[in-house]
């Protein structure tokens, strides 16, 4: 609130020199933060590569026992897995740098194609999860702060811990049991029913984000179908993060409520509810943006579990399929891809945080 009005004032009457200086600082921050992605990704690629290679070459892992030894040796040679490990490592680094994540052994597809086919589903699920987390977590967190130390606050805190304590797959199974099996109001699993999926496939350039594709078909039945399939997975994934948001909002709002400016407002006779809603709420949101960055990793991990629970055919679902097929080239590729996605999202979140809160910048 205060920082915002301060920047507004600065914009209205810009001391040119000062503005330029802070802009340069922000630019530097973004640049440094961008460069920091490189070592992070490098370390993760190295770690995953070395770890996965300690159990031998991927072809033996996937096909050992299924092919006669001479054919196996031939395929290992053809793929270059009989060369020294460090040559393979540098080759792999080079491939990653050029966006080539390898080709799956079990169904012979480039990993990048797997990403474009199944990534949108995971993205869609993650966005639904975040929406649920915001809708549930932030208002309840403010309510808990407003009623702090009274019984609704205690109930809300236990609720937040319950959200966190319930594994997403168990939440998913419970929701399924209640709403799909017993009440029969929502579909059991999948992203859409077969008919709708066929309709969506007929579009040219499908985005594979079903809700967008459904709107493009212009058929309200398809939109409804996609939405009803999204409700349970979205809630299952979102409640996990909602618990984190609830606790965070509560803590931060209580923290800001003891600040001097809030005391000043209180002494002017501003009501407690208005204090929470107008004065303490906004500054308390800044840490949340940073935490969203950390939540992305949790959300992706949760997405793997949610997708398995609901047969939601995204990256996580495919990851489990490839693990079961012992296709470790695919596993390695998808894991590294997800790590890069997390690193980039964290970067974006940090930049947004720096834009909002000037103290974050270097």
């Amino acid at each position, binding site marked *: 609130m205060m920082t915002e009005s301060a920047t507004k004032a600065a914009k209205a009457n810009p001391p040119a020199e000062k503005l330029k200086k802070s802009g340069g600082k922000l630019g530097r921050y973004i640049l440094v933060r961008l460069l920091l992605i490189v*070592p*992070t990704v490098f*370390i*993760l690629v190295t*770690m*995953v590569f070395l*770890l*996965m290679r*300690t*159990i031998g070459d991927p072809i033996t*892992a996937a096909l050992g026992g299924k092919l006669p030894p001479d054919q196996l040796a031939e395929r290992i040679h053809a793929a270059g897995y009989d060369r020294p490990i460090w040559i393979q490592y540098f080759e792999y680094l080079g491939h990653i740098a050029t966006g080539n994540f390898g080709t799956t052994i079990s169904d012979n597809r480039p990993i990048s194609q797997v990403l474009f086919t199944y990534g949108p589903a995971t993205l869609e699920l993650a966005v639904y999860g975040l929406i649920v987390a915001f809708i549930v977590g932030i208002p309840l967190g403010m309510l808990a702060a407003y009623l702090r*130390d009274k*019984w609704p*606050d*205690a109930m809300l*805190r*236990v609720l937040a*811990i*319950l959200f*966190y*304590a*319930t*594994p997403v*797959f*168990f939440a998913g*199974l*419970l929701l*399924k*049991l209640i709403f*799909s*099996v017993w009440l029969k109001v929502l579909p*059991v*699993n999948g992203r859409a029913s077969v008919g709708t999926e066929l309709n969506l496939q007929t579009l040219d350039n499908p985005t594979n984000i079903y809700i967008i594709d459904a709107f493009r078909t212009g058929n309200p039945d398809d939109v409804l179908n996609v939405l009803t399939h999204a409700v349970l997975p979205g809630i299952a994934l979102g409640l996990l993060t909602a618990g984190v948001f609830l606790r965070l909002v509560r*803590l931060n709002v*209580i*923290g800001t409520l*003891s600040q001097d400016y809030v*005391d000043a407002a209180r*002494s002017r006779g501003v009501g407690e509810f208005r204090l929470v809603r107008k004065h303490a709420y906004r500054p308390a949101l800044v840490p949340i943006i940073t935490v969203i960055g950390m939540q992305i*990793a*949790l959300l*992706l*991990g*949760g997405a*793997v*579990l949610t997708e*398995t*629970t609901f047969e939601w055919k995204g990256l996580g679902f495919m*990851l*489990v399929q490839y*693990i*079961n097929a*012992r296709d*470790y080239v695919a*596993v390695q590729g998808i*894991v590294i891809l*997800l*790590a890069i996605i*997390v690193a980039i999202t*964290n970067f974006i979140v940090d930049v947004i945080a720096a834009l909002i809160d000037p103290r974050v910048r270097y």
Partner: protein
Amino acid sequence: MTQETPKIKRSIWSRIPLIRELAQSVGWQRGMLVAGLVIIVVFLIAAAFAQWIAPYGYNQLRDDDGLFGAQVPPGGKHLLGTTVGGYDVLSRVIWGSQTAFLVIVVAVVLSIFAGIMLGLLSGYFGGWLDRVLVLVCDAIYAFPSLLLAIVMSIVLSGGKSSLFFGILAAAISITVVFIPQYFRVIRSEVVRVKSEAFVESAKVIGASNWRIMFRHVLRNSTRTLPLILTLNASEAILTLAGLGFLGFGIEPTAAAEWGFDLNKSISDVAAGIWWTSIFPGTAIVLVVLGITLVGESLNDLADPRLRTRKRAVAVDVDSAEIDEMEEAI
């Protein structure tokens, strides 16, 4: 060695961890703490005495009357029914607490040990080692922990596992995820403590680096550990269950594991068979809830801003506020 110094004797009771906190807490906070402790105690009892409490073995498929049968509804001989594989649900839920407990203990001990050592070395000596370790730990920290645990358990067990290796693999997978957290906390504390006067004095006296590190610095850097410990214990259960759910579990013939049982119950749910998923799932939720309640309460009690004060103090605060308001008017 040291001179006998007069100490303020606290009673033995008040020195046992948790008792002081319990006495300090009031109202809802005490309720949450007590509830958490009760759940943990029940969980520990189940884990310790699974052999005697559980009606059947975790991998028992038959008794004198023949096979149990698959997906038998709760009631009669099987209080909570049987699973799709024909195991007794109640027995596997009870035995599962043993597996969960072992994994928590191994994971937390390993990660505390590794995390503290690395954090201590890194923070105390600094230099290039410190920079490399910080970078690596930051990289791991930003990585989805479940994915890392998946990679680790592929490496360690390749999916198949006996009880011992299954528990060890799960615990090590979880450890790798936790080390950066302990590392960060210990390192930052060590960096802070390192510049204190008593460390300098020790150096002047001629104490060795090891002695300073372990006797002086480490002891003063561990105050936040209990908190992270409770948080990590609950996270360990969730990660173990997640791994089990994805099929990295310990084989049902080797031990009972809640996540694995939940994975097997996915198809049951669609058929309306509820008892195979609800009971192991509830067990996970309760244990994590219990541990987190205790952790949260300890956190609040350690932080005066969050601690609910006893009535007498609360009245003081109110009167102080009234004074302030009067001044303002």
